[in-house]
């Protein structure tokens, strides 16, 4: 696959994703934070200031991105969500309030997705094409459900540096194209590097806030390598984390570094999924998603 050529004859593809979870992501991740206003305000900062800074940075470098907005946030921050949409960014579904799918059944996972879609449709007048599981997993059958709901892509799983196809995991013929996965990499996410709260402790072991300069250097190394090998660089950001006055420049410098090259295809998730569906026949043999499906069935 090293000879893969992206649209516009690009050598490397970049998909910028932004999780606008407001307080709901951290409430799922660290339930002890409920009712603690000071701590919750760390995450509410995204709506207050971070979203605007991230939008400005993306505008400055002419990058269209894909945002994931849980349904509850679309309800509480409708004007902000409409503004993201008006600036031609894609808006995807992350459930109704960043539910932990590991604790839900297939049916309640579907309920969370539907509640999210209803809220997004209410605000935007259309349904999301992209989905991100907050915790990264879902129950067998959920990928087929997403297809049936008109979702074309997910960015939840890992294991590759190119997109891949989820396998059908329930019986029955489908006319819709397979669900495309845009796999994640922890080193391309802002949250593992920068999330911080004193009490309840986030991250759990109270590590230091790292050097911004070194994180930027890591990201530049990562991007240079994705470019070198011709891969799909999926960046995952959070407005309350990268959208601070000091850290937005880390993002700006990274985007500026990307823009020094003229062979990068910046795509939204939906654009990438459409291109992958049209140009790639299927997963290469032995793909992790296939190995997983085979063994999971044996383990049941």
């Amino acid at each position, binding site marked *: 696959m090293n000879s893969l050529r992206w649209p516009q004859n690009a050598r490397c593809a970049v998909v910028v994703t932004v999780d606008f979870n407001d307080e709901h992501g951290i409430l799922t991740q660290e339930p002890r934070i409920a009712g603690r206003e000071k701590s919750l305000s760390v995450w509410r900062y995204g709506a207050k200031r971070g979203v605007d800074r991230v939008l400005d940075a993306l505008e400055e470098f002419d990058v269209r991105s894909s945002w994931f907005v849980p349904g509850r946030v679309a309800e509480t921050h409708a004007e902000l969500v409409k503004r993201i949409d008006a600036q031609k960014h894609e808006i995807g579904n992350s459930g109704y309030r960043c539910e932990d799918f590991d604790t839900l059944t297939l049916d309640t996972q579907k309920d969370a997705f539907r509640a999210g879609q209803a809220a997004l449709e209410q605000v935007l007048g259309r349904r999301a094409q992209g989905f991100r599981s907050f915790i990264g997993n879902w129950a067998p059958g959920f990928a087929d459900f997403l297809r049936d709901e008109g979702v074309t892509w997910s960015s939840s799983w890992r*294991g590759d540096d190119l997109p891949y196809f989820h396998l059908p995991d329930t019986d029955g013929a489908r006319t819709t194209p397979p669900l495309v996965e845009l796999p994640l990499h922890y*080193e391309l996410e802002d949250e*593992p*590097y920068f999330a911080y709260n004193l009490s309840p402790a986030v991250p759990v*072991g109270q590590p230091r806030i790292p050097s911004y300069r070194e994180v930027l250097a*890591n990201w530049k190394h990562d991007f*240079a390598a994705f470019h070198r090998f011709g891969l799909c660089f999926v960046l995952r950001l959070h407005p309350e984390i990268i959208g601070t006055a000091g850290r937005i420049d880390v993002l700006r410098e990274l985007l500026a570094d990307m823009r020094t090259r003229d062979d990068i295809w910046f795509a939204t998730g939906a654009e990438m999924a459409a291109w992958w569906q049209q140009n790639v026949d299927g997963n290469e043999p032995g793909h992790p998603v296939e190995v997983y499906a085979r*063994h999971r069935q044996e*383990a049941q």
Partner: protein
Amino acid sequence: MPATDMNPDAPRWPEGNRSCVALAFDLDGPTGDAMLDSSIWNNPSYFTLGSYGPWRALGRLLDMLADRKVPATFFVPAWVVENWPKQCAAIVERGHEIGYHGYRHEAFWTLDRDGQRAVMERSAEVFDKYLGIRPVGFRTPSGDWGPDTIRVLMEAGVRYSSSMRGDDRPYLLHAPGIAEPMVEIPGRWEMDDYASLAYHRNPNFPASLDRIASYDTTLDNWQREFDGSHRDGLCLTTLFHPKVSGKPGRIALLESLIDHMHAQGGVWFATCRGVAQWWLDSHASPTPQEARR
């Protein structure tokens, strides 16, 4: 590096080389605790994270090693060979060594003698069936073994281990009642990429969710470890993991590290098997002190 006289106690290496580097990778894939307790079959995000090693990282690492003309040893749980046989065959085809690393990355110190034997037997069958090889090296998954382990390994045909941490050069181990010694090639946490670069959630690593370290300072640490090992004429092995330091952005760290080693001159790059054979040949009669270690 300042010119220093070699310590007369420093080990000797082939062809008058000053020090030895035995690059080694643990190709764990998705094996490990979550597979042993079956929780991984409800955790596709974690399964795919681990699978990245054999699926994508390995091929690029093999290209990198070929470009730099250095051999390496890959310690591979046999389950990974069963599921990615073509990728694992490339390790052998491209001139590298494969060693035992459990079937699904079992912690040997938690298994009784029969349990350890069963893992070794099953692994040997897989290596023979898929790759046509009989490994002689072993790195114990999780780094600990039990009182029975050395005998189980000797009986399984293992002639060296790279499991311990307590020295910076090889030494000989003796199983009770077996005349032939086993060579131990100890590694160091400082040269384990998990200690600086690995990160995952659900399950969490590190448990504290401490940050991924700076690539630049990690490379500087690794180069300093090599510089000291080279100055003192020692044997440096690595505990690198394709799914960690074979990620795209980290390949360049390994390239820089190996280029730095090459630039010093006088480095004997060998597989762990080669190191073990050299050590056995040049330490045929172990001293009582070594025998006790």
